[in-house]
């Protein structure tokens, strides 16, 4: 697993990738592109960590710490010292 951006937690392992292209379909920010049956990370910094690619990759080639990204929920979680947060 190789980190692809300093701005987020997205990691991609080309060795596990079969080039099925599901990540290209589910990513809402065009992070992945399929070129000659090989997946390339083309917009790594645009990843918003929604987790759609990791959840849908059947080969475990993608990892990302996804979760609720709203500040209010994270402040609440920090105050009650819990790691898992949800929106209200």
């Amino acid at each position, binding site marked *: 697993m190789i980190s692809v951006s300093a*701005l*987020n*937690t997205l990691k991609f392992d080309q060795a596990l990738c079969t080039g099925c292209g*599901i990540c*290209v*379909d*589910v*990513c*809402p*920010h*065009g992070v992945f592109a399929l070129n000659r049956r090989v997946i390339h990370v083309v917009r790594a910094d*645009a*990843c*918003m*960590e*929604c*987790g*759609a690619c990791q*959840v*849908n990759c*059947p080969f475990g080639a993608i990892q990302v*710490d*996804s*979760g*609720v*990204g*709203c*500040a*209010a*929920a*994270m*402040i609440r979680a920090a105050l009650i010292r819990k790691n898992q947060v*949800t*929106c209200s």
Partner: protein
Amino acid sequence: MAEAAESIVRPTTSTLTWADRWDHFLARWAVNRRGHRVAPGLYALGNPTADSPVFVTANYTLSFDALRSALTGMDGYILALDTQGINVWCAAGKGTFGTDELVRRIEATGLKNVVRHRTLILPQLGAPGVAAHQVRKQSGFKVEYGPVRAADLPAYLKTHEATPAMRRVRFTLRDRLVLIPVEVVVALLPTLIAAVIGFFVGGLVTAAAIIAAILAGVALFPILLPWLPTHAFSTKGFILGGIVALPFALTVFLGNPNTALWLRVVGALTYLLALPPVTAFLALNFTGSTTFTSRTGVRREMFAYIPVMAWTFGIGIVLAIAHASIRILGGA
């Protein structure tokens, strides 16, 4: 499950009534936020046959209605998952629009007895909650991710291929504008309380300044988001809050020429210190409503800027109390 559930298919149309539009209006104004639901289950749009497509959505009226109104003139089935009245993307993030609920709902509605094919068309933004390969393994249905926006469905259905533009989320001015009423309504009560306190401490200008700072955060900020300089939401908020606080600071500084200069400077500083962090905090909170901020980014920003906000706000409030005390005690 050994026996197939009896299929209950409710009828629906692609026509939005005035009652639907009123419901959407109320949802946008945060009236009964969790109450905008349709019953989970299977719906028949038009006169579908066993070969008609099946579209999956959330049981939030805005999601359900966006889907059915986009399918005008078409026959098909709509499978509404129980997301407890939450939209597709947010519900997918929580997992309620998810693999388990989808598989359960396919069984519960007896979908296998209703259609001959084994394909479901899901909104792309449902993907964070749904593992397409797991759905296939567990239910036999193949998941096909349609476009982000229901409005693109008619174009998508011609080829079952989404263009890159259909696959991208946007955050247009219109997208941002529709969010403002909820933000304003949620902020209403705290704003009123703060304004009343401000009125008794500093008078009408203070009350107006507090209202302006909060409105800047919840209404002006979403509108101006792409045009405010800097990258971080907090710094964008500080800049906007500073601009909004400036006229009030100038009013205090220039409006009381008979007051001692240092007292006028302190008076102006209270506005410039206490208000921008309020706007900045609300701006930081807006990250939760955007379509592009990452958890890592927001967390980093919180650690970097919330202490700055707390300090400037704290110093501003201390100055405001000192300023009010001096004015009252000094009779100025």
